């Protein structure tokens, strides 16, 4: 078992995660990544988690959800409320846990009826649900209504973010390769055929949807504990579209591309910070152009893999 788990490939992944972590830590401490670039980097990490989790639902399972912001909202508020009472790491973990539980329950409630719907109807239904979540949050006492929460302790740290990203990637990639994951892939390819093959399609769709929701709530929690202030208007339909844009740019079904797209868009946002209208026009145009000329996204379903890299090297030798 350990031998299986600690094969060359996994070690390569672990090592690269640690290297990225250490390099960025050193750069941050040396002041080369100043607090502005740091905030951008943090944002990119949060977006990676969001993109990967949405990609699980859209890319792997083929279910078009436009309600991801709703789950992010749940996570953000859970963490925000709990950490305001317990401003330490314990509070953050408790908040994460609360967010997981609530978003899993909500995702179940949302998914069981709506996932019977197909394609664009599903998109609109999830959008509707996310809006309902937001409206409820906006009218609750504990969430402080429309004014939102302020004074959330800044608990999100660079190690935590990297751990979050790694967890999201590991969960999603392993899920994809598991039996339920394969079932999801088959649902994506042809729902009716998979049903005919005896796959309980609703069940697997629900599983993927719930995992996606939990990961989104994790991203929400890290988001809340990074930005001091959250309010309901941050989790509108537009946020869902932002996440969707990352998934579509990279390629639906490829985690590597979601990571790259999230990073690229993060950097693009930084450059275009002062050209926000133009930026939105560019996003819109890019969505149209990508869909017309390369509907599979810039990288399609290609995944970066150490295994292939090693094999290639062997082959060359």
């Amino acid at each position, binding site marked *: 078992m*350990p*031998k299986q788990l*600690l094969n060359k490939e996994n*070690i390569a992944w*672990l*090592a690269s995660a*640690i290297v990225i*972590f*250490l390099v960025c*830590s*050193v750069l*941050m*401490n040396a002041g080369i990544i*100043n*607090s*502005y670039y740091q*905030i*951008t980097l943090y*944002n990119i990490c949060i977006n990676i988690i969001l993109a990967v989790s949405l990609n699980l639902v859209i890319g792997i399972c083929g279910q078009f959800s436009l309600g991801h912001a709703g789950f992010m909202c749940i996570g953000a508020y859970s963490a925000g409320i709990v950490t*305001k009472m317990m401003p330490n790491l314990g509070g953050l973990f408790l908040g994460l846990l609360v967010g997981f539980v609530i978003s899993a329950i909500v995702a179940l409630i949302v998914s069981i009826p709506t996932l019977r719907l197909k394609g664009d109807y599903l998109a609109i239904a999830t959008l509707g649900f996310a809006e309902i979540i937001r409206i409820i949050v*906006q*009218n609750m006492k504990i969430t402080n*209504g*429309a*004014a*939102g929460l*302020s*004074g959330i302790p*800044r608990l999100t740290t660079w*190690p935590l973010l990297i751990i979050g990203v790694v967890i999201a990637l590991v969960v999603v990639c392993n899920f994809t390769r598991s039996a339920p994951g394969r079932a999801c892939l088959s649902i994506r390819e042809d729902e009716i055929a998979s049903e005919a093959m005896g796959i309980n399609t609703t069940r697997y769709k629900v599983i993927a949807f719930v995992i996606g929701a939990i990961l989104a709530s994790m991203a929400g929690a890290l*988001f809340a504990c*990074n*930005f*001091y*202030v*959250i*309010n309901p*208007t*941050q989790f509108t339909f537009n946020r869902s579209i932002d996440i969707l844009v990352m998934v579509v740019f990279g390629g639906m079904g490829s985690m590597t591309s979601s990571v790259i797209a999230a990073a690229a868009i993060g950097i693009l946002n930084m450059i275009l*910070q*002062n*050209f*926000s*209208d133009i930026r*939105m026009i560019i996003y819109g145009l890019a969505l149209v152009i990508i869909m017309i000329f390369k509907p599979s996204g810039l990288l399609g379903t290609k995944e970066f893999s150490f295994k292939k890299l090693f094999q290639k090297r062997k082959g060359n030798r």
Partner: protein
Amino acid sequence: MKGRVFKVFTSSALAVGLLAGCSSGGGAGAGKTLADGDTVTIGLNFELSGDTASYGTAEYNGAKLAIDQYNASDDAKYKIEIAEQDNKGDNAESTTAATRLITEDGASVLIGPATSGTSIATYQVASDNAVPVISPSATQIDATTNDNGETYPYAFRVCFEDSYQGAAMAQYAYDTLGVKKAAIINQVSDYGQGLAETFKEDFTEKGGEIVAEKSYNAGDTDFASILTDMKSKDFDVLYIAGYYQEAGLIIKQARDMGIDTPIVGADGFESEVLSQLAGAENLNNTYYTTCYTTLNAGDELTNFIDSYTEEYGEAPNMFSALAYDSANLALQALEEAGATGEELKNTLEGIEFSGITGSFTFDDTHSPIKTVMIVELENGVQTAATEVEVEQ
């Protein structure tokens, strides 16, 4: 194999520990003394796009005008450079923008943002880096204090708090207008809810009665059902706690429907667009609290209105005026302090400032102590401005 992995883990854990150990510490409180002729950067962090862009843009214009005028004047002590960021009306973007202005552009003071949420989002960054933030219009109750009631040391605002306006209007309505039964329509936002709550509290405390309460969301255009419901209730004043975009439409629809009671509101009414939206003929018997009026304008105000109109091709509104004052306040404080950082903050705390939205000093929560004015509209035109002392 196992051993090696273990080594990797321990060494990386060690490295993490080391890094974590030295990561604390930073430049808090680090200010520098300024000499005449030095270049000082002022950061403008405003909503230049997004839902709240109309306020942000007006404020950006106002602040920029003040700085341009300063740079053009002969007796300017410093050369001011402007660094600007668009926060898109989003809290997270606002934190990012503030961080960028401070750490990348080296701003010594930040002006903005326009809304309370985006302003609060910058206060921690400001305090961490010892850079004062002056928010022109963060009116939310307790915006400048944290949950424990402590004031964010580097957060300042030049507008009065929502509670102050709500109380002032409740007092004016009850005492001066002599109305006893009020209906409230408020926007679902910190602004609308804050105003509505304090108005309600003070109005009932005085002996008045609230007979109806309804709320709406920003961007709503159809108020017919709210107003139909309200019309059946017996009230003699209508308090609209919201901004002119919706307030204008509410007033129009209410008057069209035959609601002819006095309509009262807060500084969110303050815009040229209000009378376009509501129709000038509907803006009678309408009052609102504000700190900015073009009535009996003094030289300074006339000068501001003229230069603003010349520069941007449209008349300024309260938001541009507040931002203009914020920038002038920052400039005055810089000149008086002759330094940035903590020194500048201390100067701001004790400053006596006189601007186009009133003269004021700061209280313990870094909110201005200034008088509220009640402006009356007749056919869409301001006809009278009364100062009100709020009984606290």
